[in-house]
């Protein structure tokens, strides 16, 4: 990385004859932003146009009044924000969001720690097990969730029948038909689809634990539990930070699972900040109020991103 293009250019100066016509194109001397621009501009245009601009436009719209036909009818001051905060469902929605994110992330990480530990052990067929574990990661969350909704139907649901046959429950139950069981089903579905990524991230951390350290712990007579908590877990700090923060963002942003499982339930008892925002767009037809709520959601996401950048320090990789 320490070598710059300047050095490269001076190096080929002696043999410059065939290169000569190209020299003005590749530029000479110090690197400038102008030389970098042709390479990074398409990327910048897309990020600025489709990520930064809509973010700014959304903030602007949050202060506008927009009809259900999409016409901007003038400034709204803080009315949209007032409507968001005056929503009687808001306390419930906030509580749901906290429970949703905390429960999914904690259960996912704890189960994934165990799963990664297991997938790191050698045994015949391990590759096949790992392949099976990534299936929910690749498959559409919508389609996976749909199977759970069908399977948990009280009448024809195959998962209900399976649980009755295993004597886990006495009779089929309409898990997705009422609260709070529907919300719990949604949480478990989110855990299921989050575990592959989380396990693989932790697995990466586990493979970075030096074998000598484990040997040393064994020689010192440390019990497996002691070894795990005092030797392995501290080494997993970085990959756990990545897993936790990325999961928080993903789970916070998740729309599909809650929309499919609890979307048909009346009211806002199962809504999070994201699903409530989509209802402002699709049910209430208020893009302006949805924008105001999105600004709040966006601020929350930015706090998590800031935490990621501060804790994980991804910029250290760039040089």
């Amino acid at each position, binding site marked *: 990385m320490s070598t710059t293009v300047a050095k490269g250019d001076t190096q080929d100066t002696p043999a410059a004859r065939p290169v000569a016509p190209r020299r003005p194109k*590749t530029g000479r001397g110090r690197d400038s*932003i102008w030389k970098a621009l042709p390479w990074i501009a398409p*990327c910048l245009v897309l990020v600025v146009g489709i990520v930064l601009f809509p973010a700014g436009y959304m903030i602007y719209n949050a202060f506008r009044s927009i009809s259900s036909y999409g016409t901007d009818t003038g400034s709204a001051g803080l009315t949209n924000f007032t409507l968001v905060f005056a929503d009687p469902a808001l306390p419930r929605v906030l509580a749901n969001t906290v429970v949703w994110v905390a429960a999914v992330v904690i259960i996912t990480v704890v189960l994934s720690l165990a799963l990664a530990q297991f997938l790191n052990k050698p045994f015949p067929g391990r590759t096949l097990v790992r392949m099976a574990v*990534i299936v929910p990661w690749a498959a*559409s969350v919508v389609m996976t969730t749909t*199977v759970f909704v069908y399977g948990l139907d009280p009448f024809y649901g195959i998962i209900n029948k399976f649980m009755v046959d295993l004597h886990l429950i006495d009779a089929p139950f309409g898990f997705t038909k009422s609260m709070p069981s529907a919300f719990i089903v949604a949480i478990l579905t989110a855990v299921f689809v989050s575990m592959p990524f989380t396990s693989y991230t932790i697995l990466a951390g586990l493979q970075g634990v030096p074998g000598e350290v484990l040997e040393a712990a064994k020689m010192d007579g440390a019990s497996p539990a002691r070894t795990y908590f005092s030797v392995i877990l501290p080494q997993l700090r970085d990959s756990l930070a990545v897993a936790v923060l990325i999961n928080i963002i993903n789970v916070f942003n998740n729309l599909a699972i809650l929309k499919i499982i609890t*979307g048909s339930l009346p009211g806002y008892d199962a809504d999070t900040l994201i699903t409530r925002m989509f209802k402002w767009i699709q049910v209430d037809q208020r893009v302006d109020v949805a924008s105001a709520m999105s600004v709040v959601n966006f601020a929350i996401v930015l706090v998590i991103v800031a935490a990621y950048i501060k804790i994980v320090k991804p910029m250290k990789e760039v040089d």
Partner: protein
Amino acid sequence: MAHSTLSPVAETTPAGPAVVSTARRKTRYGSDQASGPRVALRMAAGLIIALIFISPYVIMAIGSLKSRPEILGVPPKYLPATPRFDNYATMWSTPETPLPQNLISTIIIASCATILVLLVATPAAYYTARFKFPGKMVFMFLVIVTQMLQPAVLTAGLFREMLALNIIDTWLAMILVNAAFNLSFAVWIMHSFFAGVPKEVDEAAQIDGAGRFSVLFKINLPLVWPGIVTAIIFTFVSCWNEFAASLVILQTAGNQPLSVALTKFVGQYDSAWQYVFGVSIVAVVPVVILFMLIEKRLIGGLTAGSVK
């Protein structure tokens, strides 16, 4: 450490070290005191875990072969009396949504977005891995922040923007959205691969008179192809499954991808589940196979170097 699993150098190392590592693994079976019963126990546990993770897709596959009375039967039966393979032919015409068009939408949006990502991300990843320039840190910071953002939180803004650009409810809108939100991961992962190619390789080629672009295409791309394949597959799968923005931006049934179209069956009295599952299998199997091809690189791959 993710670097070590991602580094193209490790990928291109000849068979030598691989042989060593299998030999080492064999001795680890021994030193781990993995006696017969313990190995058998692990295999049994592995089997149960594998079954748990594929169970929804097994239900999906079996359900797709049931007849309408069977899939809505009370009480349900686990297996169909005779597998109805003809479901895969008849499932495309349902009153809920034009499924053939939905499949075409999914394919076009995901493919075009992936191509766009590749065209835009490759030069950026190459240049940032090779050169310093003023504003590089700002650029990479922007890439990382974008990587953490998802369409869901910006949907209201995207919806209004596409309306203003008069491309609301078009494939183009979703191609742009999918490309923009997957771009940063592609830049990030390819950046780490390009950084793994020694600079001297570039310089030698330049001395031979090669231009910047031919250095990238003829010298670097063959060396970093594992990174490019990973980026392509990851982007494609992510675009293939996108839901939140498509739900709001694509309003005409025929323009919607399968992820949005299939939700229309849920919540109905007598959903044609066998068709939902048949279409789901068609949508899930290809991306699962693609993901399995990059399984090794998924270890730490998503974070591409941010895991130390």
